[in-house]
């Protein structure tokens, strides 16, 4: 027998079951709402309220436990590894969409054009049309959604790239300030990061409006519109989530919750933010630029 194991096992908690109920209500609501069944909307509202309540309550408990000194070195490692593998799963979620983008650009286009010995594929899938536009960007042989213009890389996307990369730098400054126990600088850099993130979201919203109004680039604009919006949309959603996390961390920074040697929550959110950054770089290169 070796030393006592003091790993912190929390009290039984109501938050997981509330988390389940909120997800259940949201997804049931979604399934009904997509099919115009009225109860769906109520379920969506209920689920959203439960979700906010759950996050607030669960994280309040965790913060209380953290400040109460319940978490030692081993717990810290658990959280770190947990966050790491969570980000890994997110990475593969995005990889699914990037992979689809590659497939739709470089493989399905050729197939639909009836190139090479696979000509029969087109005859089976889309026999009505004789000549097919394969050049990217395209909205398919049926010109689905009507003529559109693709989104350029210079302009807002470039500005957004600079904004997000800068936010990564300011977040690192904040981390250094945290390690130097310089609360004032820490809080300042945190809010600077949040401001950059929110500016990004604002620009992105503007870009969407511009695309819909001026470029006729809609979600229904064939395969280009589909991939454009699903990739930028899920990324934008992650930026919003990351921003909310950063706000919570900034408020906790102002309350001096973190110590130079112990600030997992800060680091977890920073990892997440950098991950969102990296995904954006992928987007900028493969969606906007190439």
């Amino acid at each position: 027998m070796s030393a006592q194991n003091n790993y912190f096992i929390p009290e039984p908690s109501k938050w997981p079951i509330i988390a389940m109920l909120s997800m259940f209500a949201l997804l049931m609501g979604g399934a009904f709402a997509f099919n115009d069944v009225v109860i769906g909307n109520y379920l969506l509202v209920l689920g959203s309220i439960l979700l906010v309540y759950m996050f607030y309550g669960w994280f309040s408990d965790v913060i209380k436990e953290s400040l109460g000194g319940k978490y030692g070195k081993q717990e810290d490692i658990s959280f770190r590894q947990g966050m790491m593998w969570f980000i890994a799963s997110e990475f593969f979620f995005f990889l699914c969409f990037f992979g689809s983008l590659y497939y739709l650009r470089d493989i399905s286009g050729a197939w639909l054009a009836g190139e090479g010995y696979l000509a029969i594929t087109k005859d089976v899938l889309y026999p009505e049309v004789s000549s097919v536009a394969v050049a990217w960007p395209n909205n398919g042989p049926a010109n689905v959604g009507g003529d559109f213009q693709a989104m350029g890389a210079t302009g807002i996307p470039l500005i957004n790239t600079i904004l997000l990369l800068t936010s990564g730098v300011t977040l690192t400054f904040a981390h250094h300030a945290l390690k130097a126990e310089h609360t004032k600088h820490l809080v300042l850099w945190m809010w600077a990061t949040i401001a950059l993130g929110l500016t990004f979201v604002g620009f992105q919203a503007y870009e969407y409006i511009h695309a819909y109004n001026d470029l006729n680039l809609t979600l229904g604009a064939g395969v280009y519109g589909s991939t454009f919006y699903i990739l930028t949309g899920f990324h934008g959603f992650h930026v919003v989530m990351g921003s909310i996390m950063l706000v919570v961390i900034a408020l906790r920074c102002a309350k001096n919750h973190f110590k130079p040697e112990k600030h997992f929550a800060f680091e977890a959110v920073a990892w997440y933010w950098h991950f969102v950054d990296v995904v954006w770089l992928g987007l900028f290169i493969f969606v906007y630029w190439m």
Partner: protein
Amino acid sequence: MTTTTMDIAHDNDHHDDHGPQKGWRRWVYSNNHKDIGSMYLIFSLVMLILGGASAMAIRAELMYPGLQLLEPDLYNNIVTNHALVMVFGAVMPAAAGLANWMIPLMIGAPDMALPRMNNLSFWLLPAAAIMLVLSFIVPFFPGGGSQINTGWTLYPPLSLQVGMAMDFLIFTVHLLGVSSVLASINIIVTIFNMRAPSMTLWNMPIFVWTWLVTAFLLILILPVLAGGVTMLLFDRHLGTSFFDAAGGGDPVLFQHLFWFFGHPEVYVLLLPSIGVLSHIIPAFSYKPLFGRKSMIGAMILLASIGMVVWAHHQYTIGMSSAAVSYFMIGTILISIPVGLMKFNFIATMWRASMTFEAPMLFAISIVAMFVFGGLTGVMLAIVPADLQYQDTMFVVAHFHYVLMPGAVMALFAGVLYWLPKWTGNMYNEKLANWFFWTSLIGFNGTFFVQHFLGLAGMPRRIVDYPVQFTEFNFISSVAALIYGLSHILFLYLVIQTIRGKGTTKAKSRSWKGAKGLEWEVASPAPFHTWDSAPTVDAEGEIKQK
């Protein structure tokens, strides 16, 4: 050695040294890996009965040619539901239940690393099950749209044309995905961070190893499936064209995304069972597992190759010949690590003075039947042959020969093997033998003849068939009834063992040849175990002072 290590030293610094809560809170708010493991196992048993009932319906319909019981759409709906319930409802939760119960016990950890998240992982499953059942019954309500007739693969364009039931199914997949990813994160963190300090990765029990590899697979593949069905949802309701050739999309893209998930999923179902066998066979051979390190290497190799061979499920879609060749060779390569594992099992039994308790009977028959299923897999992997076999009953026979022994029966064996540890009672050996023989005969009778049906050209997922297939289908259906009914024995056996009437008490080391830390704690295992980490030697056993 057995009693001293059981003493749970009390420590006033932490507050987990009390017993379970009373009433429903114990289960709904649970943070305890044993309670959550039990809930997983009970849930999977319920789903097994549901999936089994749908299997019985399928075989009842196919007993004679012509339409007897089921309309074609309902038949396809049941086929879809059977697959999803069995894969996501029965096998995966059962394996996760074993993981929850056994991993902390086996590595000397007080609980899972993230206990609250563990609770969430389980409780998402009943929610998902409700949505899955809804996807089955919604079409029977007014305005509920058409039934799901796609099979579990959900291929577009058919899945784009199904009514609202498909949306319930898509969200079911999302819930299941979240549940499995959270559980996998928890398992990985537990294994890396919660092991007794003296237990190295090489010394770790093989069951824990298999779950480590499985959890990695799940984290890599489930998000891809979630993304794929999300695109399906967008195509259905938001006007996108991912899988629509008119808009420049391609239905085949979904097949790639699905099988990028679907093929490694096979190993997700198999690997924990390989882990179970790696404990049962040495225990009843009274020898250590042969080639322990090669076993670990083989499972890593299996998972790695398994990630990059998915398109052998899609030979007939018109891929380039280079791609087809690559997927064929890759697939056949998989037989190397699998063969290695099987030979390790055989070598463990070689010249051993074995005893033949029910878990061991299952284990031996699994090795034999799984090899058979693997060989038909090699047949299917060969492209020109596959062009003939694909979408026939041969495929059905093949994957049932892989998954039924490889996953389901191995899980039964695992349950029998560890039931004494969970309940404190030995199960009724005679009854377990009856269960083994009836299920063995029933299973082989059901699926062996389906090979011939498939080779003769009977297509799968079709409600009717030409009269020349009548005899074999009749045999298959009668055997399926035997197989289905045999599970009542299992149900009775488990309930009897839990209640402890007419059974003998289990020792803490319930099987003479059983090795590992889980046999060092009392039977039934106390609510909290390993409050202090044990010190283990190179064999993974408690170090003698």
